[in-house]
């Protein structure tokens, strides 16, 4: 017998409540954060509850399965409902909240976070502070999302132009539309937990109609798909300045040839990985915004033979 959404929500809420009782009884656990709200709008697609549990320093239990990863994840169950828990020591949580590192948590535009239990006043304060949005973090999130779009767009173009596989190109373009929706959600600055594509349709109705609804409805011809590609290209061009700002800002400031490895170093403590940066730079180069050159690179620390890596030059002010 299938349960209704309300029933499912009640089951999840009960499981969460019972689990939090256990958490309260354990003096080693200081706080619990629910990742992604539980509501009728969101529970329908959940198979588990996601939580962060903040533990005291010095009590972490590691298993062999944790390997080299400093983060600890556990799957638990309460009343038949699975809970996906990340255990975070208090001091690391503090650094995650305010610091900038690959392991810091960034503002999430796709899942609300709620402190559902807290036994430590300063943790409560930190969490509140973490939940504020900062422009620079948003910029970087936008940059990452835009590079997904660049990748999807490029892949669709290759398939359409080289393989002439209309079905596959269509599927890839759908993926690109989802990327646009994600970017629009991030650009709006608000958290949205529903289906991203729906929110994208609300935030950029005209454009999303073109690249998503009309794509779905129209016949899958090379001409039609080509039009969608062109539209996406235009969208990227129109928004490049805002969406790729972190990269452009750095290249403009340097006003010299910047090897990719150096660019990656600059963003080493953010969520912008070298592949994001390369995608962004390659697109900017194709659009003539920056120049692409190369720079010598030693593959090993003892190498005397040099290979070359991409290097980019931006002469815009």
């Amino acid at each position, binding site marked *: 017998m299938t349960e209704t959404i309300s029933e499912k929500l009640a089951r999840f809420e009960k499981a969460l409540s019972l689990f939090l009782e256990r958490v309260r009884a354990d003096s080693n656990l200081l706080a619990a954060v629910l990742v992604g709200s539980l509501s009728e709008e969101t529970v329908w697609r959940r198979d588990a509850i996601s939580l962060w549990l903040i533990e005291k320093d010095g009590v972490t239990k590691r298993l062999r399965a944790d390997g080299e990863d400093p983060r600890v994840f556990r799957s638990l169950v309460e009343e038949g409902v699975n809970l996906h828990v990340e255990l975070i020591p208090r001091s690391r949580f503090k650094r995650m909240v*305010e*610091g900038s590192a690959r392991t810091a948590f960034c503002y999430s535009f796709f899942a609300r976070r709620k402190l559902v239990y807290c036994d430590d006043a300063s943790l409560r304060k930190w969490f509140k*502070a973490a939940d504020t949005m*900062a422009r620079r973090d948003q910029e970087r999130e936008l940059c990452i999302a835009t590079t997904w779009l660049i990748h999807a767009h490029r892949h669709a173009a290759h398939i359409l132009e080289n393989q002439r596989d209309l079905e596959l190109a269509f599927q890839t373009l759908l993926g690109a539309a989802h990327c646009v929706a994600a970017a629009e959600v991030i650009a709006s600055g608000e958290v949205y937990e529903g289906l991203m594509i729906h929110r994208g349709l609300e935030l950029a109705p005209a454009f999303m109609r073109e690249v998503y609804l009309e794509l779905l409805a129209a016949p899958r011809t090379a001409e039609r798909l080509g039009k969608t590609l062109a539209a996406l290209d235009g969208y990227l061009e129109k928004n490049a300045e805002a969406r790729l700002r972190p990269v452009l800002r750095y290249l403009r400031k340097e006003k010299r040839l910047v090897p990719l490895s150096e660019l990656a170093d600059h963003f080493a403590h953010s969520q912008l990985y070298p592949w994001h940066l390369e995608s962004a730079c390659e697109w900017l180069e194709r659009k003539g915004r920056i120049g692409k050159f190369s720079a*010598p690179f030693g593959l090993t620390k*003892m190498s005397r033979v040099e290979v070359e890596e991409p290097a980019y030059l931006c002469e815009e002010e």
Partner: protein
Amino acid sequence: MRTTLLIQGARENNLRNITVELPRDKLVVITGVSGSGKSSLAFDTLYAEGQRRLLASMSAYAKRFVNQLRKPDVDFVHGLSPVISIDQKTVGSNPRSTVGTMTDLWDYLRMLYATLGTPYCPRCEQPVATRSPQQMLEHLMRLPRGTEVEVRAPVFEIFGEDWEHVFEQVRLQGYRRVRVDGVPKDLGDQLELSEEDHPWVEAIIDRFVVAPGIDRQVLASLENGLKVGDGFLSFHPLGASRAALKNFWKDFGCSEHHLISATLHHGNFTFNDPAGACRTCAGLGTSKRVHSTLLVPDPSRTLGDGAIVKEAFNNDKNAWGGRWLHSLAKHYGFRLDVPFADLSEQVKDLIFHGSKAEKIEIVLPEGARQGEQHAGKKMAFQGVVRQIERHYHWYRKQGRSMDGMEAYLQKVMVDYDCPDCGGARLRKTRSLVRIADKTLPQVGELHLRDLQKWLAGLNIAADKTAVAATVVREIDGRLDLLTGIGLDYLNLGRRSGTLSGGESQRIRLSTQIGSGLMGMLYVLDEPSIGLHAKDNVKMIRTLERLRDLGNTVIVVEHDEETIRAADWLVEIGPGPGIHGGEVVAQGPPAAVLANARSLTGAFLRGEKLIPIPEKRRAADQRLLRIRGARHNNLQNVDVDIPLGMLVCVTGASGSGKSSLVHEIIFKKLASLRYDSRILSGAHDVFEGHEFVDDIINIDQSAIGRSPRSNPATYVGIYDSIRELFAQTDEAKARGFGPARFSFNVKGGRCEECAGDGAIVTQLSFMPDVEVTCPACKGRRYREETLEVTWRGRNIAEVLKLSIEEGVSFFADQRAIVRKLEILHELGLGYLELGHAATILSGGEAQRVKLAAELGKMRRGRHNLYILDEPTTGLHLADIQRLLDCLQRLVKAGHSVLVIEHHLDVIKCADWILDIGPEGGHQGGQLIVAGTPEAVAACKKSHTGRALRAHLAPAKNR
């Protein structure tokens, strides 16, 4: 209780199963000619056995962590104490080791600063109180309940980095909110601050409301905040009245800027810890910059031919360097086939410093296979120097050392004082702590005698007397030892690598005295080396002091004063090598010196002496003219060094002799002859180099690092010997070439031991066991190789011949025997041809090098030979041979420049340059230049004063 040390049946190296009894708790001197067996007795037997027995008493577990020593070849040693050896090995080139760290004085000074130091506000230079985090917490909790307090930590600029980087570091530490000149900001936002701005930035560490039960979290915040603020914090009770604030800050930090310092800890002042070290140089005190001279080793080469060092600029046509050269040449119209030296200054500047804002079109070199995609594009050229500096900057930011990168940077960059700390090595905040208006780095620059005066003038507050007085007393005691041993010209900040062997030995000697140990056995190797005659007495007094503490002091020495000051004297000999290894005489010095068998006695009685030359060579027109020498402590010195003579440079330790001879003369000539990248010390004029064909530095370092090097390989006869074997009928029949007779190459050597002749087995907590190779029985070669003979001997047997025997064996082989004869004349006839380089003494190694030079001499060449204290390790008899050799060089038309303290060498010089009058900043002047007679007549010269007696007729001495 035993009162003697009895060594029974010593057979190490050339010792002939000797038995020696030495009195305990006395000053014992062991002397003898070079190679006689003195060091074999003192170090290889006595010291080695003492160490071995001490280590043998450790547990098997502990032994694993210590290099185990093999048992020396001796029957037994009775009456041993724990033994410490102090030899002349320099302390290596660790840039973090200084005189202060070697003597532990730096640790005591750090403790002194932690106890007595007063930090000053970084904003207004007012003294600031220090409190522990607990004390800060208690003070904060006295605020009225409900008061909201903001805790902030100052964020200091990082030299060479922009604010974006600084903020990144703050964020990495987990802090997002800051105040810039008091205005709150979020580091997540784009903050526009240029490098010219110097705002006061504080990271907001925490904000709390005073209430019970928050102690633990506030304390954690304070401790974390102190890390961000480099030991400083500020507190801001929000909404507090002016009176309340005034009261809060009364005797609690800087009342104007609301800053307080954490209690000082001695760990704050160490430059070997990231917490205390300067962030720019990581505690090394130096940073690197590109020196354009290093980029072009040979200015006669063209750019197209790789004039610029390849590591800095790869001119290959498929590399960016090649593309740039062609593009720049085309754009600016210069040629790539012109010697670099002939290029205009504008072109050189362009290559080094870039095209500034001007854009250059990229042109591919002819024949380039790569780079198509760049052709036609335009961009500015950064310049080689800028590229390297950027690379260096990136490397330092990585925060870890990479071997390959260090080697690369050494080639193209030079060290200079760190632009951030100015060589102080510590973070700037540590330099905010002062005692009597001096920071710790400033104290490190004081000469030791000035440091003692500074210490004596300290006013210690009553509440700190108990701790501080103990520390001051300890420092003073150690300084006494160092100044007493003649090292008062040193300063604690001086790098250990710049010390001579003698200086480092004397430092370690003073450290031992400072330890106050008794019942120990100390074994020293020529502690007088490098000491001027005027300081020798101080050194002898120090040895006596060590003895008087209740220790046995055994010294290997040749110095006459030390020999005469001994309680007991042992002479090993009579000759070197197989001609030595016996106890010639032992007893109180007077008895030994009166012994007819004693060679030392013969010299000290005046029966044998090193004669003064009948006449001094006159200078001809050729001379090296140096003006304005000012490297290290040299005070703008002008010197003329006559060529074609034996010239001695003399002076007190630390007076500037090595700075003049090595840093200026040797390096300048080497840069002119070999490699223009060698940078010489500061001077204005250097003329006369055209009179010098070659510059050769003959020191006492080993002739090879492995036992595979030996006198035969070094002087260059090994190849000739192998050629002889290869030419035999037997070798030809078997198809053996010269390589077959080498133990360094596969083919002819024993592969079981790879030509070593022995197999070493490493055991985890026992000494390495070395056994003769069972396959070749120690002969190093395969059986087939040994079947080939020349004049009845195989190659292994030939290498076993002594040099003396070799002279007759190779009598008709001109190329070989000439070199062997030179070695024999230099007193090395006892050495085997295959004698491992690693077991040659310093004096032996030096003479092998001299022999190699004498063997290479070509008519018409005029070389300059430089020797630094070549008498180290030499007995008076050896010194005579050395002088004969040096005079031979001069007779052959060469020049010899010697740094020396030994009066028997100085008196034989044709010309003397006396530098002084003292060491350190009290030296660096040319006191007198002239013949020994002229120097002896100079009243201002310490060398002259000591020389007078040596120049007097023998009967008057």
